[in-house]
């Protein structure tokens, strides 16, 4: 029992260590990633990336793995640390996988939107952007090879407007308000204006709350 308590305490201390900038702890970064993961799972469109948090967390995992080497293989502490690492790694993988799926599904749409945002405001990390471009050109190449080049000239075009697959931003989502929000317009046959109390939960069309999800006022659940 003592040993387990020790490990849990060590872990907690480790995660609570701030970095040099003094504001951010590993625990809060992990929480940010968890929130981002849930939002990404339930939002129909792709959300702004959290690469800094991901990078930070992966480095933490490396530190933890290094620390574990000194504990000796098979000790109770190392088992629990390993569990923690596996769980963190799962969350990060799941988050990035979800983003990749969206990038693949909505490649054309996402690239068009990204082109309109500045590099600083982009929703995709630079690696994701490269992946999206490579993925799209591989599809275009296959279309060209197997079909388009054999079609009459007039139809050989890869028509961006008709062929773009767009996410359904009117899909409904479950959410929890992180603070009191007023003046949300719920579209319908008659547009209604509603307020959300802090901590309240609702189902509403994503389009009505998209910006609030992106700025952290709302958490999708």
């Amino acid at each position, binding site marked *: 029992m003592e040993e387990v308590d020790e490990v849990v305490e060590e872990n907690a201390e480790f995660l609570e260590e701030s970095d040099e900038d003094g504001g951010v702890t590993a625990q809060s970064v992990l929480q940010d990633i968890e929130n981002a993961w849930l939002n990404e*799972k*339930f*939002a129909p469109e792709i959300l702004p990336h959290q690469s800094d948090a991901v990078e930070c967390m992966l480095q933490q995992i490396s530190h933890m793995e290094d620390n574990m080497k000194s504990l000796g293989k098979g000790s109770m502490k190392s088992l629990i640390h390993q569990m923690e690492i596996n769980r963190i790694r799962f969350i990060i993988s*799941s988050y990035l*996988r*979800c983003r990749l799926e969206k990038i693949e599904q909505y490649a054309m749409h996402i690239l068009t939107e990204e082109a309109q945002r500045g590099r600083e405001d982009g929703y995709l990390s630079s690696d994701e952007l490269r992946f999206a471009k490579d993925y799209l050109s591989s599809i275009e190449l296959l279309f060209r090879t197997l079909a388009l080049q054999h079609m009459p000239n007039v139809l050989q075009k890869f028509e961006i407007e008709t062929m773009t*697959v*767009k996410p*359904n931003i009117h899909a409904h989502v479950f959410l929890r308000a992180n603070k009191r929000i007023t003046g949300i317009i719920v579209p319908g046959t008659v547009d209604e204006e509603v307020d959300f109390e802090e901590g309240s939960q609702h189902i509403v069309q994503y389009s009505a709350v998209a910006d609030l999800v992106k700025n952290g006022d709302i958490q999708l659940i």
Partner: protein
Amino acid sequence: MSLCSSYKPNYFSIDDILATEERLSCKVLQKVPRLGFMDHSSESKDLKPGTKLELSFWLAYSMNKSKDPIASIDIPKYYKESYREILNADACAIELSKWNTYFYEFGLHVAKFDHPDCEKLPELLLKTFKSRFRLVMDWAQNQDTNPMIASQLPMLERTIFLSGRKSKEQLVYWFKIGGGGIKTTELIANHKKRKRSTFIENER
């Protein structure tokens, strides 16, 4: 990990291509030279005005939707007034897939025509869906429901039913096992089954 799966057809969507293949009755209004073969019952080289044809939605739409239509359309009977009465009476009692497997999706497309019966069509589809949804949900949540019942449902409801059923199964499994099990993926399990049956076939 599945993404948001609400129905939103796109250019590549298989369901949408099949839904737009559904047919309507049309009447040719103008002569269309050299396309007489579209009317199987006639030997004529040209398509004559007055000819009645059953055309798929995608073709009917391009022939009708313009200031100077080539053909007029007649919307399917199950979207009309008389059938509307039947749906209003008890939508749940109808085997909608017998009317049309793509009842809702096709209906949404048909609603785009400038036809008097089309005005009330979106409302009809919504009302029908609302009255039947509870039934579909109950079937999906009840584990004793025969899964073959899905074939009685039109495609949109069938997708909802199957996905509801799958999540119920996953929930029950999670309660029993507590999650964390690794299973062979469905894709690979089916692949192996197929291999086995091909092997058995070849041995005969």
